[in-house]
C-alpha cells in the first residue's frame, strides 16, 4: 500500500487552512504565498481546487535535474529536493508540466511538496477531508497520473 495525498475538490470550501499549515510547517510563517499547496478559487462556479505535486512515478522534475538533486524515497515514492545539491538552475520548474515545483528566490533553490516526511500538515489541517493522506489505489490518483502522462508518453514507459 502506498500512501499519497488524495484530493477531493468537491469537499473543499477554500478555507485555506492547508495553505497556512503548509507555509508554517515549511517556512515557519503564516503566509499562504509560501505554501506548497494552493487552493484555486472558481467563485462563479463555486468550485475550489487544492493543487500540489502528485509525486509522479517518472517525475519530469527529477529527470530534468542536471545534478541529481531530486531523488525518490523508495518507501513512500515521494520526490525530494536535496538543498545541498540543488544549484538553482530552474530547469525542473519548466520541465514539470503541472508547475508544482517552484523557485524560491530567498534560498536560491527549488521547493516542492515532500509530504512532510510522511505526515503532511495540509491533510491534518483540512477540516472537510478534501485533502487526506491515504491509500492511492482507492483514489482517482492513477487517473490523474494517466492524464499527466499525455505530456510525455515516453517518460512513463
Amino acid at each position: 500500500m502506498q500512501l499519497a495525498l488524495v484530493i477531493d475538490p468537491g469537499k473543499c470550501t477554500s478555507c485555506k487552512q492547508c495553505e497556512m499549515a503548509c507555509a508554517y510547517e515549511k517556512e515557519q510563517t503564516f503566509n499562504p504565498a509560501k505554501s506548497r499547496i494552493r487552493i484555486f478559487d472558481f467563485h462563479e462556479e463555486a468550485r475550489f481546487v487544492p493543487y500540489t505535486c502528485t509525486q509522479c512515478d517518472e517525475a519530469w522534475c527529477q529527470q530534468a535535474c542536471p545534478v541529481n538533486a531530486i531523488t525518490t524515497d523508495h518507501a513512500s515514492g515521494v520526490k525530494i529536493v536535496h538543498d545541498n545539491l540543488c544549484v538553482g538552475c530552474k530547469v525542473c520548474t519548466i520541465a514539470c508540466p503541472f508547475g508544482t515545483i517552484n523557485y524560491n528566490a530567498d534560498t536560491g533553490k527549488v521547493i516542492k511538496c515532500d509530504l512532510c516526511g510522511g505526515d503532511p500538515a495540509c491533510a491534518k489541517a483540512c477540516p472537510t477531508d478534501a485533502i487526506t493522506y491515504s491509500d492511492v489505489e482507492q483514489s482517482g490518483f492513477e487517473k490523474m497520473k494517466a492524464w499527466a502522462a499525455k505530456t510525455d508518453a515516453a517518460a512513463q514507459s
Partner: protein
Amino acid sequence: MHYLVLGAGPAGVTAAETLRKHDKTAKITLLGGEPEPPYSRMAIPYYLIEKVGEDGTYLRQQENHYQDHGIDYVHGTAAALQGKAKRIKLTDGSEIQFDKLLICTGASPITPPVPGLDRDGVYNCWTLEDARHIARLAQKGEPVVLMGAGFIGSIILESLALKGVNLTVVEMGDRMVPRMLDETAGVMLQQWCENKGVRVMTKTMISEVTDGPEGLTVHTKDGDKLDAKLLVVAAGVQPNIGFLASSGVEIEHGILVDHYMRTSVPDVYAAGDVCQATDFSTQKAEMLAIQPVAVEHGRIAAQNMAGKVTPHEGSLNMNVLESMGLITASFGLWMGVEGGDSAKMVDLENNRYLRLEFDGNKLVGGQAVGLTEHVGILRGLIQTELDLGPWKDKLLKSPERLPEAYIAVSHGII
C-alpha cells in the same frame, strides 16, 4: 550484446542507465571525451560563483554509480565510425567493437573568425577545464568582456556579474537572447542588466583582439576599444560530427534520426545536442540543444536500442534563464503562429511580462519575465494540447490567469 554510448553528457548517462534497466546482462560502455566524471554543463555557472564545488556539477552523485550499474565508463575520443564493421576508431589509435551504438557526442563552441581569439586570456565557457581558467581570471573588479548574449552567454553573464567583475557584453543581434526572447522581453532584460552595472552593447561585433594594458584589448567593428583581463567567447555551438565524415550517417545540421532515434546506418542511434530530431511544435527535425531534451532523447533511444519500441513524438523547446534576479522563460512557439492569437501582459515598472500564443483554442507557445510561480504550466498546456474552451477568451484579456485556466480546464470547470 555490447552497447557503446559515445558521449557522457546527460543524453549518454541517461541512455546507459536506461539500457541497463531494460537489459540486465549486456555489456555497456560509456565513452567520455573529458578527463572528469560525467558532469553537467548546466551546472558550470554555479561552480563559477562557488555555489557548488566541482563535484556539485556531476550528473550522478552516488559513489561508484557507474560500476554499480555495470556501466564501464572509459575515457577517449572517437576518430571514425566504421558502420558496416560496427567499429569505432579512437584518436589514440585503439578500436572499440559494438553491436549497437548511440552517438551523443554533444556540441562544441564555435570560434568565430576573429583575429586574436587564440591569445592567452580568451576562453570559451563550455567545459569544467574552461571554468577553472575563468574562475582564476574573473576576480572582483577585473575588466571582463563577454562575446555573445545568447542563451549560454546570458547564463555566464550572471555568474560573471555575481563575481563582481567589471563586465561588458557584446552581442551581434539587436537584443539579448534573440532566439529565446521577443523584443519586449529582450529589451527588459537588457535594461535590467544595465541597471545592475553590466554594459550591454548590441548590434555590434568584436572585430579583433590585441595585446592591451590589462592583457587584452577587444576591438569592436564600430571602433570601441575595451581593455580586458579575460574575454569569454559564447558565440554559439556546433554538433560534434567530425568523426562521422564518410561514415554514411546522414547529416543536415546535426545527425538526422527517425522517430525511433535511429540514424541512416543500421544499429547506430543518436541523441542529444548532436542530433536533429523532431520538435514537438513544428513536427520537423530541429536542433534543440537543451538539457531536458537531451535526457528525453537518451532515454527514448536507449529504450529502442534495447528492443522496447518507443516512438519519439517530439520534444518541446523551452528555456529558463536567470540574470541577477530577473528570471525569464520561453516555451514552444513563443513567437506565435500565422493566423493565431496573442495575449500580452506587460508591466514594465515591475519587470513582469507574460506573452501567450494560441493556435485556435490551444496554447502553442509563451514566454514569461519575472513570473515564476507555476511556470511549468506553460509546458503542460502546450504539450497536452488541451482545448481551452471559454478560458481562451479569459486568457486573451488576462494572460496572468494561466494557472487558473489550466486547473479549470483539467478539472472540467468551464
